[in-house]
């Protein structure tokens, strides 16, 4: 690209007088005085959350109401600020989901530590933890800012499942038993 010499023009008389410039500025601000307001009236109006937003991490259930987390603790280990603490527990043998073997006994996410990085969602092999649209967390004490398991499921709700991995596994097992 050739070099373009930009002309440095001396200030015109109107510019040196400054008052015409002030007047044109006043016109601009006057236009803005009557232009529509752009402020979002926050507590009454909420912003539209775009897809892929990383809000508060939550635990989800599959459409059959099965809790998806198998307490493998990958998220706990990957969590950079160590906000997640899981106590693994066994699923009782008489449960229909006994073949999943493990489910969290306790699952705490300390929202005072969480940095909303989304690594837990990324690493989860069960697609059980999601950063959803909740963006406003507040509490009066440190204890209140720790999300326990029931709260995490309450925030997470149910998300559609593409795989039904454990149901298919159970079905395949049953099939092989009948075939074998």
């Amino acid at each position: 690209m050739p070099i373009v010499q930009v002309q440095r023009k001396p200030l015109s008389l109107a510019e040196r007088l400054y008052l015409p410039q002030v007047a044109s500025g006043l016109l601009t601000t006057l236009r803005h005085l009557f232009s529509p307001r752009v402020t979002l009236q926050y507590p009454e109006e909420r912003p539209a959350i775009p897809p892929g937003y990383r809000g508060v991490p939550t635990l989800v259930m599959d459409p059959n109401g099965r809790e998806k987390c198998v307490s493998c603790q990958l998220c706990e280990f990957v969590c950079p600020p160590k906000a997640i603490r899981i106590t693994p527990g066994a699923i009782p043998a008489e449960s229909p989901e006994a073949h999943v073997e493990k489910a969290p006994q306790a699952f705490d996410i300390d929202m005072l530590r969480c940095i909303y990085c989304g690594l837990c969602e990324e690493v989860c092999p069960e697609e059980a933890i999601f950063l959803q649209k909740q963006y406003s967390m507040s509490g009066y004490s440190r204890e209140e800012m720790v999300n326990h398991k029931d709260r995490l499921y309450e925030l997470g709700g149910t998300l559609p499942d593409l795989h039904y991995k454990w149901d298919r596994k159970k079905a395949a097992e049953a099939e092989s038993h009948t075939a074998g």
Partner: protein
Amino acid sequence: MNSLLSLPFWLLGILKGLAVIAVIFPLAGACSMAERKVSAWMQGRPGPNRATVPWVAWIPGVGVALQRLGVFHLLADGLKFVFKEEPVPGQVNKFYFTLAPALAMIPAFTTVTVVPFGAYLASDGALVPLMLANVDVGLLAVFAVSSMGIYSLILAGWASNSKYSFLGGIRASAQLISYELSLTLAVVPVFLWINAPGAPSTWSLVKVVEFQGQPGFWGGAWFFITMPVSAIIFLIALFAETNRQPFDMPESEADLVGGFHTEYGAFKWSLFFVAEYSNMIVGSAVFILLFLGGWNPLPWVTLADFASWVGLTGHPVILGAVSVLIFIGKIILMIFLFMWVRWTVPRFRYDQVMKIGWQKLLPLAIANLVAYAVGIAFLQK
């Protein structure tokens, strides 16, 4: 009216003083509210619109409208300033630190008394001005007392014992000295014109307004039309004198935190605030009286013409109220101009302020004075 004037001198003085306080304090508060709203609108924001009072909010329509206008933030702000903790930093000189805000109020309120804010026609057709103290030195009194206001800024800056406050005070003094010259020189042509040679001379602001309401094309033209350069110099110097953007060097929150009132808080700070707005109101009132025809509704339309058109000639009280409304309307427009400029033009650098004051405005004011002096000498010979 006559029974009011027959009160003892001291009682009348106290009543007038209370009247000034009762009017200027809420007015300054209203100005601060208007400033917040105007700035918000110019920046595409709705501005303060949350505070409300229960029993007003229940009125359908009106309550919400008042809340949207932010009227109740005025009360909230005022109450906050009265009731919040009053911090006095440890390093300050306590006596002068407390004295400075009070000193800021004195010139701000004293100048109000000599400014006429309306007029009515007596039964014999003579124009009677409405003002608290009708002194013949008029404008000189305003200039003399308002230039005292600078002492409060210097005192505040010095007593705060902080470098930012001190710099703010120093800047304030330098700026006021620089612009007072142009301010005074700009009004001299006006008084050269209204004082005929040989006749008893006057500095009265009432006379200036009467002079802008004479019959004929040149008699009825406001001085803004006949002396535009004077008007513009006066207006610019007025911005500097009232420490308003783009000349708010003493405050300049970007480089001096808060300038002379960095160390102040709560009610003391609000006194500075009220003094600033009061100075603005008085300054715009003087500008209106000098250049914008005072209480005359339009150029070439005097208050007397207006009264005969709408049939108010025989009603001095109503006419007086109308003239005050006209005057207040003009003041509101001027205050809006102050705010409009503040949210348009960025602050000058300190050297630019000095350069504009000494190298541009002062020579222009002197040239303007000489030109008008020669012209007036020819015309009034």
